[in-house]
């Protein structure tokens, strides 16, 4: 409107339109903030109890314990970025872990085949979520809340009071779950690989960028002619497959599989993504951020008892962290929005 734009020049920024230097954008990134928080927490905890990091167990657990949650958080971040959510990953994790256990117990298939089958099963369960979300047009929150119970129900029905013990699991897998390579636990290496592949794909492929676009403005995605349904299916299938992989990691790490496996872990995955700067309404954030969020959550879980903080407060701290992350996100988004608006009016 004329009332709004009295300026003679085109309403753009003054000539300073240069790409930001890499360092500057790195410092400004949301991930940097959460990484600093993680480092600070580790530093404080270690200062009080040096064994937290500087002991064989401590150093190993630093990477080993979060690896399952990291894998889940990566999948969750991909789904949340499309403005959806996947609450069924805990149940998928449990179901695939049990499936793997049964396959070892009943068939004697090679470990690698079982791993692939578990991941595949997870992908299929994720695909079911994706199809319901993409075609039934029901919010993902509701759909995956439903499948959370359905998948868990199938698991309970199948397993009953049955329980698979470490003695039923091939030694190869169990030793993989506890051994290290160059001092880094192998499970952690798996989670690093998953994270690296996902981060690369999200940043450099058309598919990955379209996940961001769909989450940023679903209506615009339709107008652009993006294959939004297909992309949403991809995101859910990936989340399911990663939950399947997490099921295998669980078997490798703990060996014992009872009906409670993975119960409630979906909320930790969502929490990790949100703390790591993935916007709950989609469109922004990275899987790397979500992974750092997972490290922070797990480290707090392990660190607070060392600091002598009672169990009750651990939960409350996690809750405060999530609230803080969301409030921070909101404040930063508003500030950025205002800044961009101000740039436009200045001239």
């Amino acid at each position: 409107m004329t009332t709004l734009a009295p300026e003679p020049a085109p309403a753009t920024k003054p000539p300073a339109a240069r790409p930001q230097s890499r360092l500057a954008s790195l410092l400004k990134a949301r991930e940097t903030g959460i990484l600093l928080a993680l480092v600070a927490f580790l530093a404080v905890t270690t200062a009080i109890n040096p064994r937290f990091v500087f002991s064989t167990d401590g150093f190993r657990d630093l990477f080993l314990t979060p690896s399952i949650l990291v894998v889940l958080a990566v999948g969750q971040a991909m789904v949340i970025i499309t403005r959806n959510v996947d609450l069924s990953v805990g149940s998928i994790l449990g179901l695939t872990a049990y499936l793997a256990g049964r396959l070892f117990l009943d068939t004697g298939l090679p470990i690698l085949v079982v791993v692939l089958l578990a991941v595949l099963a997870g992908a299929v369960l994720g695909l079911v979520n994706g199809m319901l979300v993409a075609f039934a047009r029901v919010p993902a929150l509701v759909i995956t809340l439903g499948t959370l119970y359905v998948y868990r129900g199938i698991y309970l029905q199948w397993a009953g009071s049955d329980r698979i013990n470490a003695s039923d699991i091939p030694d190869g897998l169990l030793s993989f779950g506890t051994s290290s390579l160059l001092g880094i636990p192998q499970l952690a290496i798996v989670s690093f690989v998953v994270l690296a592949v996902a981060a690369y794909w999200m940043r450099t492929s058309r598919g990955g960028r379209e996940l961001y676009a769909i989450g940023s403005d679903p209506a615009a995605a339709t107008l652009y002619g993006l294959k939004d349904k297909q992309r949403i299916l991809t995101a859910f299938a990936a989340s399911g497959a990663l939950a399947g992989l997490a099921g295998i990691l669980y078997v490798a790490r703990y060996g014992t599989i009872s009906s409670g496996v993975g119960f409630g872990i979906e909320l930790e995955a969502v929490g990790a993504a949100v703390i790591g700067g993935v916007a709950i309404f989609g469109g922004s954030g990275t899987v790397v951020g979500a992974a750092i969020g997972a490290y922070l959550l797990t480290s707090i879980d392990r660190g607070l008892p060392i600091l002598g903080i009672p169990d009750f407060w651990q939960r409350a701290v996690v809750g405060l962290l999530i609230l803080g992350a969301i409030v921070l996100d909101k404040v930063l988004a508003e500030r950025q929005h205002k800044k961009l608006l101000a740039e436009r009016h200045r001239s």
Partner: protein
Amino acid sequence: MPSPAAPALRLSDVSKSFGSVVALRSGSLSLDAGSIHALVGENGAGKSTLVKIIAGLYRRDGGTVEFQGQTVDFRSTAEAKAAGIAVIYQEPTLFPDLSVTENIFMGRQPTSRWGRIDRRAMRAEAAALFARLGVDVDPDRPADGLSIADQQIIEIAKALSLDARVLVMDEPTAALSGNEVERLMTVARTLRDNGCAVLFISHRFDEVFALCDTITVMRDGSYVSTDAITDVTVEEIVRRLVGREVTELYPKQDAEIGEVLLEVEGLTQPGLFTDVDLTVRAGEIVGLAGLVGAGRSEVAQAIFGVDEYAAGEVRMAGQRVPRRDPVRAMDLGLALVPEDRRRHGLVLDAPIARNITLATRGRLSRGGLLTSRRENATAKDWAARLEVKAAAMDTLAGTLSGGNQQKVVLAKWLSTAPKVLIIDEPTRGIDVGTKAEVHRLLSSLAGEGMGILMISSELPEVLGVADRVVVLCEGRKTAELSRAEATPESVMTAATAAAGPTTHGQEKVS
């Protein structure tokens, strides 16, 4: 300039309905390469529907579409885009979280081996596009916070990078200032000279006549005429736009016009409206006319207290109506029937009775409790008065036809016994028969001494129903016309008066 080859895009007798509402009756259009074609028509003439069919967003119900001589039926925007059709919508649709560069190339980013997006090439191309357009936009900044003008530049850059054969611009200048319009027109001319067929939709005749080679007029969802721009005059086009006898459709009952009820003085909200003065008297229907985006609904919402305003004052019968306090506004006797009744006017999943009593629940309840019986009894009275056609009072509002939904919203507000009723687009999406009923109702309410402020994009409605017409253009009042002064021409002229307030008769009518 018709070229000898097949037209770049030809639509013949294209139609489209949504349920019982016919959005496009018979649209015809023929675009030539290397030419700019104007499409004009009143709001609701079917232009936007036509555009969405071209874009592949809607599928036509009938008629044919030929693209470069071949019959096509686009099933998605992706197909239309792949064929070489780019559309710039009235309101740009960008991804706010993503960078400007990504917005331009989303879905067809340049990739190197392994499907890896070549960011450097993409950024360089975006920068080259901006250089070609002669604008200075940082390719790395997010789309969030860009002005409408710059968003449109992004859309144009998108079309350029597509190397589109047909470019459709749906009212691209509606929100632009003088320089920005000039810049846009330069771009359009460049594209034309490069052999692109451009469809330019605008309400501003000065732009249409300055820019276009051919002009097609649409009215009521149908094709009216196509002429070379040199063969017609503005007056002729306006006559064809309006083109019907307006008075008979609108039963107008004479009402005693009484004292001033609603006074609005100097209402201003930067970027939306500036210095708007209004008065509504008892028994008077004031029409608030203007083009889409002129700020009419924004003014209405500010008056009622839904939206903020920076300066100005609103008074009801001499008493100040506070800012941002709709409850107080209701107490003072104001009511607002919103434009989008499905979203803002109704609880679609609730029965008719609950919808009608929504604004009077406090009064109807006894000791904090409200029985269905009481609710139904009250609702029934109103439904009968307004002739709401529904099986029962527990029918869900969402299942009613547009006309009946509007009556339910009206009943809700009338039951609060307002002194002044603000009604935004009272007959949008309503069939002709019910339209007349709504008009009769408004007229009889005025006859009972209510003051009515009616916002309408339908010119015949404004002229047929209103006692006085206030015209807004780009957030400013450009004319205030008595019933006698208000003609299609005078209202349209004021509504399209792009530059400066050309104050028509400012005299108060009483």
